[in-house]
């Protein structure tokens, strides 16, 4: 690429490459399929493969695990359970001193659907999965707690009984005098938010290949861990080894991270143990079902937000109560999402008084973890919905309310009440630019026209502050001041980069950012090329990381948008060291002082006389071939490593104020949406997003980050949710159930930029990759609230939810008999997977005959569909091996059936459950036999809960499948006791179609 002319910049330095739209160096490799990912990395010959057995229950005691059959399968090398893991490892350390031990496999009980219970190590993955199905686990189900509010109740089932509560941490913070402000307010505006569980799902799941080297006691692990390296000691401590004995290597390319890849660490430990136990390398590749079920989720959060306001729209104080749901275990670095943005809880607003209550809640759901945005989507959903409500309740324009409350221009760096030091910005100008260049006036006109035409149209706004580069000490805000004093101050943020130059002047760079598609190599190339007068394409960046060979820091990794204010900065520092060295060497040859040496076009020259030059490669050669020629005292060779930690990142102070991040950008969004009156579907008419991320290092990459986070923001707003049944069954196990937006669903936003360089970081750049994760969901929600004039808007805004918000009542059918049987009225609410139903059938036999049949084990064995064997286990209690199926879906189960509440020959309760590799069910039904002359009417109703794989991947068919199975049972019962009445397959209707008609389940 020809070197562009230099451009002036804010700091007066010449800019040849930084800030330019340099095309991504990574793209040719990735787009032509030449990228190699964790699963592509070579493993040693003889590597074994692991598959994991996971809990179908949200909460249960593990009574017994029988692995004999699995072990006996040919090709199986080992089966490990919690017992072995407890022998070989210590529980993971957690942030709180609470008895919430967790190992890499469940030990005595399971606490969420998908929790790892056993691991099979076999010659290949197919055999391993076959053997997983062979393992028999006996569970004793416990009541599960799913809803975070219910979890806080005094009588709630306890996720960790030793803690004595499902709220292991509650902290109260007060800044300024919020009580007084609320007392003096003209009005208090309140809103309660219920933010859902979701995650940004990477294309590539977790991959771990662990190879234990017994000679030195070293675990050599290749995995797609994304950092932060704070978790490296968590793993080595669990394995009872030193950090140097746990070598973590990460590949150069990644199929996406979004924070999620941090949660690989329990599996790293598990596979290390598996390798040590088997004496062979062990590889495990997470599949999509495992990922969605058990990898991670951003915490769902209840927020009770309140604003003290004056009648003119001025907010004088905020109050937030946050109840953050961490699922079954608190895995490091949790509860990050509750504290990572603590310092900036007041957002873009100038109110100085604030009260915060943070409660951390445990439930029987997948543990929460790092997900892009990291607490921000939740916080801003609360704050910006609240600001919209302030406008609505005061009858003001929402944008006017935002503007009235912004941190004033010219007041930066600005200290926010909870401690954030907002480095730079001009929010008023950003909004004015967005309003003008984004065409807000035109959008308002479109809204008015649409409304005049009877259409449902709304406009939403969101103003957010985008933090970047976390203060690694933020989590210590969770412990009271006294405890913090004892533990010592924690801040810290060390970054490392190395620039190497070989004897022909070839330049390579290594750095600590563990990129996952962001284009870090491109930007590092720009930075180094600029310093050394080279072309970015001359620079090779190796982004692999190896804890045994590279400089180690707790901050290493890809998270909290740390790259542009941390890794990029330190790479520039390393490049400057190389530059200084080369300038010094060249000054001897060029005969000018080192500070008059300039770089460009692959040459080193005298600044005032470019003809006096020498090739960059020659100087590099001197450093390697002729160390004796170097200036006195200069170290030979050219390889410079720099380290950097921003001084502004300080531990929390005694007033619980903390500067939780280094830089703070600004995002202002507005959008227009239209709702289809018939279907409730939302169409995004226009979306404008304005970013001030300080200095932009590469506008193509900056916009790419915005598109990415915007796309996920659309997903959060409209589609994505990890759904759980009331019993804790997980319902979103496939990409047909957990819906990610595709190109068809994501409109192209209008992207606008302004640049207020950060004075706190040498490049002036801030983060840009997380803003829309925080602004877009609430911006769309505000537009929907505006369109429908409603207060409570719950994400994701699915068409069914939006339609329900429209508050229409359903007209009954003209003939009541046309309504389906009572089961429809009693139907479960979405999310609850308790299936209920009822039916009736007339059978030409007396109640006594039917009764005898039901109580006769031999008859029961014939009546239970697909029954292979039935053993009586007690009075009217049976255990049966059954094969059940609907269409091509079939599974083998162990059924337990009991007949209780016997009222011979009138009524009985049939209860029990099924356990099998497809999942687990429990249910009960009351059967009543009502004599009607020569015949008997059998009335029944049932409640069935389904958990495990069937619930996770078959959600939309469960109701129908249950009906089919009940139909099968009754068909067999009729065939048994009244063969002449049993429907037979015919050309017009199949047996069960007719049966369903009999049962009143089908017209």
């Amino acid at each position: 690429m020809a070197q562009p002319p230099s451009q002036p910049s804010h700091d007066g330095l010449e800019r040849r490459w930084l800030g330019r739209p340099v095309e991504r160096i990574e793209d040719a490799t990735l787009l032509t399929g030449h990228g190699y990912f964790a699963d592509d990395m070579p493993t040693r010959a003889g590597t074994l493969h692991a598959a994991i057995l996971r809990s179908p229950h949200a909460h249960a005691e593990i009574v017994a695990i029988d692995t004999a059959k699995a072990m006996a399968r040919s090709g199986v090398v080992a089966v490990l359970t919690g017992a072995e893991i407890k022998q070989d490892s210590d529980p993971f350390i957690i942030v709180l001193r609470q008895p919430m031990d967790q190992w890499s496999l469940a030990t005595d009980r399971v606490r969420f659907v998908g929790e790892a219970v056993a691991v099979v190590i076999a010659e290949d993955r197919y055999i391993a999965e076959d053997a997983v199905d062979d393992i028999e686990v006996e569970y004793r189900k416990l009541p599960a707690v799913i809803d975070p509010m219910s979890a806080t109740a005094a009588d709630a089932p306890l996720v960790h009984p030793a803690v004595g509560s499902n709220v292991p941490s509650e902290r109260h913070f007060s800044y300024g005098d919020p009580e007084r402000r609320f007392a003096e307010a003209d009005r208090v505006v309140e809103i309660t938010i219920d933010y859902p569980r979701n995650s940004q799902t990477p294309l590539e799941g977790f991959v771990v290949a662990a190879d234990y080297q017994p000679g030195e006691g070293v675990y050599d692990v290749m995995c797609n861990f994304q950092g932060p390296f704070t978790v490296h000691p968590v793993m080595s401590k669990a394995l009872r080894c030193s950090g140097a004995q746990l070598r973590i290597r990460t590949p150069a390319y990644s199929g996406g991270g979004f924070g999620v890849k941090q949660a690989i660490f329990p599996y790293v430990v598990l596979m290390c143990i598996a390798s040590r136990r088997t004496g062979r390398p062990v590889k495990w590749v997470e599949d999509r079902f495992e990922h969605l079920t058990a990898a991670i989720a951003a915490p769902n959060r209840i927020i009770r937000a309140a604003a003290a306001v004056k009648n003119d729209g001025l907010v004088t104080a905020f109050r937030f109560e946050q109840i953050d749901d961490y699922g079954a275990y608190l895995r490091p670095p949790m509860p990050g999402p509750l504290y990572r943005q603590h310092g900036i809880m007041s957002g873009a607003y100038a109110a100085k008084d604030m009260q915060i209550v943070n409660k951390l809640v445990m439930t029987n759901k997948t543990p929460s973890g790092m997900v892009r945005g990291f607490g921000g989507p939740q916080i801003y959903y609360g704050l910006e919905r609240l600001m919209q409500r302030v406008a609505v309740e005061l009858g003001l324009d929402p944008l006017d309310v935002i503007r009235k409350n912004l941190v004033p221009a010219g007041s930066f760096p600005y200290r926010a009440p909870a401690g954030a030091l907002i480095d730079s910005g001009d929010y008023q100008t950003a909004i004015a630019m967005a309003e003008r260049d984004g065409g807000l006036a035109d959008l308002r006109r479109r809204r008015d026209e649409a409304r005049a035409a009877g259409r449902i149209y709304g406009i939403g706004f969101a103003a957010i502050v985008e933090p970047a580069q976390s203060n690694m000490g933020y989590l210590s805000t969770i412990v009271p001041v006294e405890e913090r004093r004892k533990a010592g101050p924690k801040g810290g943020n060390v970054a490392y980069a190395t620039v190497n130059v070989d004897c022909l002047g070839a330049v390579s760079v290594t750095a600590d950012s563990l990129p996952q598609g962001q284009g870090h190599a491109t930007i590092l190339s720009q930075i180094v090329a600029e310093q050394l007068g080279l072309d970015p394409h001359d620079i090779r960046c190796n982004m692999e990381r190896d804890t045994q060979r590279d400089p180690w820091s707790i901050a290493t990794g890809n998270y909290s948008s740390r790259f542009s204010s941390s890794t990029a900065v330190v790479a520039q520092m390393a490049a400057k060291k190389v530059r200084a060295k080369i300038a010094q060497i060249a000054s001897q040859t060029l005969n000018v002082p080192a500070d008059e040496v300039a770089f460009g076009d692959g040459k080193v020259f005298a600044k005032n006389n470019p003809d006096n030059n020498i090739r960059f490669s020659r100087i590099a050669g001197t450093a390697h071939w002729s160390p004796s020629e170097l200036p006195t005292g200069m170290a030979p060779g050219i390889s410079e490593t720099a380290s950097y930690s921003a001084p502004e990142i300080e531990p929390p102070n005694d007033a619980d104020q903390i500067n939780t991040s280094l830089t703070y950008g600004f995002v202002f969004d507005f959008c227009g949406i239209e709702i289809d009156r018939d279907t409730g579907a939302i169409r995004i008419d226009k979306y404008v997003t304005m970013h001030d991320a300080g200095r932009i290092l590469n506008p193509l990459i900056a916009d790419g980050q915005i598109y990415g986070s915007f796309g996920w923001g659309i997903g959060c707003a409209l589609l994505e949710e990890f759904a759980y049944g009331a019993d804790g069954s997980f319902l979103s196990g496939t990409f047909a159930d957990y819906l990610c937006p595709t190109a068809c669903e994501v409109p192209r936003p209008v992207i606008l930029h302004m640049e207020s360089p950060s004075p706190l970081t040498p490049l002036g750049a801030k983060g840009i990759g997380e803003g829309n994760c925080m602004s877009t969901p609430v911006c769309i929600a505000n537009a929907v609230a505006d369109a429908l004039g409603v207060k409570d808007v719950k994400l994701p805004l699915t068409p069914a939810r939006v339609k329900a918000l429209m508050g229409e009542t359903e007209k009954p059918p003209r003939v009541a008999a046309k309504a389906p049987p009572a089961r429809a009225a009693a139907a479960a609410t979405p999310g609850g997977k308790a299936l209920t139903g009822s039916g009736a059938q007339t059978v030409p036999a007396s109640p006594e005959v039917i009764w005898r049949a039901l109580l006769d084990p031999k008859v029961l064995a014939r009546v239970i569909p697909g029954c292979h064997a039935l053993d009586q286990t007690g009075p009217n209690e049976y255990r049966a091996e059954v094969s059940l199926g609907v269409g091509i879906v079939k599974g083998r189960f162990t059924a337990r059936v009991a007949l209780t509440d016997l009222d011979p020959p009138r009524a009985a309760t049939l209860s029990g459950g099924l356990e099998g590799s497809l999942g687990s069910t429990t249910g009960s039904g009351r059967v009543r036999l009502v004599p009607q002359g020569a015949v008997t009417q059998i009335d029944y109703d049932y409640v069935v809960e389904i958990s495990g794989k069937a619930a996770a991947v078959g959600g939309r068919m469960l109701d129908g499948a249950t009906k089919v199975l009940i139909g099968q049972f009754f068909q067999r019962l009729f065939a048994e006791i009244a063969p002449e009445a049993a429907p037979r397959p015919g050309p017009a209707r199949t047996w069960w179609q007719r049966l369903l008609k009999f049962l009143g389940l089908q017209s």
Partner: protein
Amino acid sequence: MKPKPFTYLRPADINEALQALARIGEDARILAGGQSLLPMMNFRLAQARALIDISRLAPLAYIRKTAGEIEIGAATTQAQLLAWPQLGDATPLLSAALPHVGHFQTRSRGTVCGSIAHSDPASELPLCLATLEGKVVLRSSKGERVLPAAEFQTGMLATARRPDEVVVAVRFPERKQGAGYAFMEMAQRHGDFAICAVAAVVSGKTTRLGVGGVADKPTVREWSGLPNGELDDALNDFAWELGGTDDHHATAAYRRELVRRLGRRAIEEAAKCSS
């Protein structure tokens, strides 16, 4: 997400396939596009001792116009049908519905007959077959029979196919002179299983509406000479008869609402296209 062991058979012709099916019985599955079967096998929801792959049997890959019908062979992909130049003229309903069937990638492998044989209650092709009153051609080593859609489609993932039979072709009636057709569906994303799909045919005073995704199979109603003012009531009654089920994407009530609203829209559009 690996299937249990199975035998893979690639017969040289349909007769060989039928013999293999007769020999192995219920544990054998016909593999055509595999877009539903293989994911279900990988999840171990479905198991097969043997897969009999008919996807490369060239004589089964055809689209043929015969006496008022379009016959589509078992190896014909959805993409091939969508690309058939006469599709819009011959069966406008299919032309409107096919773009909603999965995605570009899945249509390139998924077959028309496979989708109908799989009988997912939310699938578009079974809905079109039911609404147009098409036919299914089943063949076994013992012979061939042709079933009307209403007899073939028996419920959720269930059909009248016997274990030794292969769906060798489906037949869609050619467009009727003067009739108007419309297809609409509500899915959260393009290509998702429909929450509710509707197919309407309006011909003179007769209105037919097929609904998918609400009951356990596509269900069709026909009204003749319905006074305009009664359409909403008729649709409401139909919606209640279908009932609908709850899942975490939509409630039964929402599905019924779509029957009413989308049903009306589709009927109005079909009426516009009729003459």
